[in-house]
């Protein structure tokens, strides 16, 4: 809020007569780069307890547009506006990446740009090149982490007294089990990865490895390799909010670890429940239409 106010004032100031008066009421304007965007600060909060730990049970949802693009993005039509009109439009959004930019290695940035160009292309005619084209979301694949958290769908956290916490995502009915205080490594790569959790005071910390390298972070083609390592932090901020943070590390693709953060909101509607979103049937003509019997 303050930086927006500042920028508005700078514009006003540039257009108006610069005076000692204006400079005195704009103590920081023009003196430094805009600060990195951060989630709104919340006062300290102690969540209700379940079995001695913060109780994260509930239906949660992000309201950022990061699934379109983790970084700053303009409003856009989406694919095929000639068919979909304004139904297919995607809203603008601000970066949720700390510092604004994802620190790609130069060659990796080129691959990301290629992904963007190919995001709505598919070719499943060859098992070996099956995953080469197209955003996995476009094909209704399980989204992986952290993308599952900021897709525009709710997810349910089921926390009981067993050493497992379930996160069940509405999109593609994807699920992942968080193994608490688990020592073992991922036995194999999977779409939702291998999640190991631990409590750090008010925060559920989840270490995710073993993700399939084919998943993407967003529709803009942001991607990773098989070396992806994600550390997530879920911190209750009020009865109705959690702060979600994820540190993303992949030395094959990025020059350094980077971080995203945004709030998760508790869905509060009376009797609200996660519903089914089985999108496979909507991809069958797209994926397999070319192999059907000619009419």
């Amino acid at each position: 809020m303050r930086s927006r106010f500042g920028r508005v004032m700078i514009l006003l100031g540039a257009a108006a007569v610069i005076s000692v008066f204006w400079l005195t009421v704009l103590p920081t304007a023009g003196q430094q780069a805009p600060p990195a965007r951060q989630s709104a600060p919340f006062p300290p909060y102690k969540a209700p307890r379940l079995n001695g730990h913060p109780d994260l049970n509930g239906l949660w949802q992000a309201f950022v547009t990061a699934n379109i693009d983790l970084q700053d993005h303009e409003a856009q039509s989406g694919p095929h506006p000639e068919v979909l009109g304004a139904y297919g439009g995607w809203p603008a959004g601000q970066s949720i990446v700390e510092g604004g930019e994802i620190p790609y290695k130069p060659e990796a940035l080129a691959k990301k740009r290629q992904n963007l160009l190919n995001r709505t292309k598919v070719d499943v005619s060859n098992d070996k090149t099956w995953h080469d084209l197209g955003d996995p979301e476009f094909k209704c694949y399980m989204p992986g982490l952290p993308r599952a958290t900021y897709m525009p769908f709710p997810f349910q956290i089921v926390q009981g007294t067993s050493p497992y916490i379930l996160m069940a995502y509405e999109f593609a009915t994807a699920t992942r089990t968080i193994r608490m205080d688990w020592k073992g490594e991922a036995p194999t790569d999977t779409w939702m990865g291998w999640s190991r959790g631990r409590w750090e005071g008010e925060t559920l910390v989840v270490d995710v490895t073993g993700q399939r390298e084919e998943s993407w972070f967003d529709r803009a083609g942001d991607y990773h390799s098989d070396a992806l390592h994600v550390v997530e932090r879920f911190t209750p901020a009020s009865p109705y909010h959690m702060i979600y943070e994820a540190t993303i590390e992949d030395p094959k693709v990025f020059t350094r670890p980077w971080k995203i953060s945004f709030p998760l909101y508790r869905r509060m509607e009376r009797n609200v429940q996660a519903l089914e979103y089985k999108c496979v049937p909507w991809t069958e003509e797209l994926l397999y239409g070319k192999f059907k019997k000619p009419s």
Partner: protein
Amino acid sequence: MSDRWLTSMFIAAAMIAVVPSALTNAQTGASGSSKPPEAAQAQTPKAPAKAPAAKAATGKAWTPIKTPWGDPDLQGVWNDATSTPMQRPNGSTTDVLDDAESATQFEEKLAYDLSRDRRDGGPEVDVNRAYNEHWMDARRLKITSDRRTSLIVDPADGRIPPTVPLTPERQKIRAERAAAADRFNAGMPDVATELSLPVRCIIRTDSPPYLPTIYNNNFQIFQSPGYVVIAPEMIHSARIIPMDGRPHLGKTLLQWLGDTRGHWEGTTLVLETTNFRTDDGVAYQGANPATYKITERFTRVAADSINYEFTITDPATWTKPWTAVIPWTKVDPGEQMYEYMCHEDNFDIVHLLTGARTREKNGEGKR
């Protein structure tokens, strides 16, 4: 279940069965249950026909454990594999095999029929069996511990009741389904959407009733205050069941897996599921989703055993309701349930369709 179906299930999926894990589980045994007492392994010589497994554990009575919020505790990974068939073999009037010898004979006969490591067929049979025991759940070769000859306990003959006359509309749907199945079995499917829901990776064993199959017979139960969640291994869906008495979804909000509400009757978890989509194949054995109703009851009868009973009612399909009981066995906490993905690498669906197109090009009507 045809071999083709099973083969497709395999190829379509990166099958990751529950396997003994070499991992170190720091919290083994901390999941609200402990190693089963010896008595729980004992078998009842004779059990009543209705819900017999309820008395499977003799000796020391099982004292149900509860969650901190007071619900019966069913948390853990459970396996429902058994070789006991859904329906009693035709002509048999025995519901429970009293003596150990006939039980062993019955089990061995079933295991022989289920085995894929035999070499007593022709080359084509052998190829179909190439997907062999290595992939299978060994638990599926054992009959239920109460030595029943069918999973169905009601009607008393252990068989699904006769069907009622179908409406012309449903006859038409069934005929279309049968024609599509014939094309599939002949290796000549026309289009992806005519394949079965499991082959299309839309529903597998995650739709009630939960029935034993050749592998991935695992179900993880999670509980939190006000909810029970059943996560079937195949296909990675979570059945999130509100226990707070709220009404079902509105009548026009239908789902592939329906909409489930639960409540406790004593220590028994009772689930009622409605709101199934009307697609063919959603309801068991082609029943009519609009009139189909399923009630499931889960009773933990021992530390390592849940009695899973379900009753199916569909007056548009069967002359009367029928009930089956399947024992669920607790999977050792050292074992894990892994992600079962399906659609993401559904190579098989392309192979099936391209195979059919190639056969057409070569002038082959049938394989």
